């Protein structure tokens, strides 16, 4: 039936959001519609169940982990600004962007994207990926297809490769270092249409 006509004025703080995330007005509007669409009972915020309704997400092995990343620890709801802030991580990075040190790191820079990926592993947000957390992610990605021993050996190898200060966990800097050659911008960006 088509949603009711909306424009930028229906989105609170749209200008600030556009500044912060770098989304254009048209994209922001489209994302707002998507938000409203996912919010089936018009609550004004999203809950984990609303994400679970997305079929394709359910076939993603780390679907639950991705859903979890939208919600701050302890929070059960996510409002539109938070929704967009997370999605902003996947905008292609701007080239040749000069910024002064005072500005916060944009979400879609390489570091911003890495931080997002790091948090997918580091679920308790303590700043380190522990062996157990790594195992959890591996388990999600592979579940029944491999044995527990194989999972553990994979985790062991990954930690050994990345853990430089030998504290049996991977900090953000170690994570960043181990991935320094990966073209993060290309792999963690989503192509938005004009």
């Amino acid at each position, binding site marked *: *039936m*088509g949603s*009711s*006509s909306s*424009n930028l004025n229906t989105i609170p703080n749209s200008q600030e959001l556009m500044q912060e995330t770098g989304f*254009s*007005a*048209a994209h922001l*509007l*489209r*994302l707002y519609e*998507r938000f409203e*669409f*996912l919010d*089936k009972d018009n609550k004004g915020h999203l809950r984990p169940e609303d*994400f*679970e*309704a*997305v*079929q*394709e*997400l*359910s*076939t*993603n*092995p*780390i*679907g639950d982990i*991705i859903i979890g990343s939208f919600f701050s620890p302890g929070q059960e709801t996510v409002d539109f600004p938070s929704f967009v802030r*997370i*999605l902003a991580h996947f905008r292609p990075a701007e080239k040749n962007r000069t910024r002064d040190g005072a500005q916060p790191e944009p979400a879609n820079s390489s570091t911003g994207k890495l931080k*997002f*990926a790091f948090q*997918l*592993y580091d679920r308790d947000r303590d700043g380190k990926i522990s062996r157990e957390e790594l195992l959890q*992610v591996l388990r999600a*990605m*592979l*579940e*029944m*297809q*491999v044995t527990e021993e*194989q999972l553990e050996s994979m985790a062991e*190898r*990954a930690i050994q490769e*990345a853990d430089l200060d030998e504290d049996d966990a991977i900090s953000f800097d170690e*994570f960043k270092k*181990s*991935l320094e*050659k*990966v*073209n993060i911008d*290309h*792999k*963690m*960006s*989503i*192509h*938005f*249409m004009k």
Partner: protein
Amino acid sequence: MELFFNPFDNLLCILLGISFTVWFTLLLVFIIVPAIFGVSFGIRRLYMKTLLKIFEWATLRIERGAKEKNHHLYKPYSNAIIAREPTSLEEEIKEIRRSGSNKDLDSATEFEMSDIFYFARRGVESIMDDEVTKRFSAEELESWNLLTRSNYNFHYISLRLTVLWGLGLLIRYGFLLPLRVTLAFTGVGLLVFLTSLIGLLPNGRMKNFLSEKVHLMCYRICVRALTAIITYHDSENKPKNGGICVANHTSPIDVIILASDGCYAMVGQIHGGLMGVIQRSMVKACPHVWFERSEVKDRHLVAKRLSDHVQDKSKLPILIFPEGTCINNTSVMMFKKGSFDIGATVYPVAIKYDPRFGDAFWNSSKFGMVNYLLHMMSSWAIVCSVWYLPPMSREEGEDAVQFANRVKAAIARKGGLVDLLWDGGLKREKVKDTFKEEQQKLYSKMLVGTQEDRSRS
């Protein structure tokens, strides 16, 4: 005082009387009589052409208005907000790793921390826009059809357009809607009344003949009640007795559209209320297959009744919508295999609605039936095309699911719809864990496969 009002009253009564008579005569001549005989004056097609011209003008006007104000026109995308590349899991993960290390690829395809990038990106892409939920929201239009429900650039409209829109509103709600409601009531009322009458006749050729005529007539009135402009293609393939007619499902109106061009035996659950009354009287005139709510769960019972009906060659072809739910008419979802198991000839039918005139899709989780019908009757028109495809039968060695998919592909191709593998029923339930396994299997094949090689070497 009273003397003053009386003559005025009289005059008013006379005027009302005259207008009612004129109204009903026009109705009768232009709508009901053609419906009875199945002819058409071509009024609706003329109406459609005129509307199209107006819509084009309105869209141009909006674009011009936006340019004048120098604003970025928000175009409702008929595609996605994002572009997704159809690469496979293996390709992508290999690419990530290739860029990340100088090691020789073949010996190092073990788990890498960067593998998560692929899954994360795919996951967020599907949050922003996924194939399945897109099929369930109303299709978006490129041009504006003077219904505010499908436009996002409302504030670019000039005075002239607003006047036009207001006029349109007046016409739709003040003239078209009452007209259509009257017709709908007439159509349904006649159906119930006449089929009950026919039910009194003894079974035989006369009864079947009359029942056919009555059904067709009433459905045609209903078609006019929606101002549905339907084009039937390939009528030589129309379903015959003893067959099953299978079509894609967009709205409950599909039934009316198909049944106004041919006689079918309907299949469904008995409802209460008005629907139930209609169902019960229809079955008096000719055999339809109605199930009690309790019987619906029993697959064998359903299959048996359907196959019994199909084997009796004197009974009409069954009409079934195997998707099981309403899809938004841009794609065809997985067909339930029940109807393909019976062994009868299947006559596929593709129905495609033209969204420029009115959106026929029923989003049952958002709108109730009455709301939906009101929307339908206050749209400009419902324009659709129906293609009758040549009959198909199950081939040797083909099971019901494969047969169902073959039919589905044929319907999708003919109607210009996208053939999707998803089960429409899943839109309401959570996807079973078996689907996750697919991705996990693919990924593990990449990793574990190489581990086995290592242990060998």
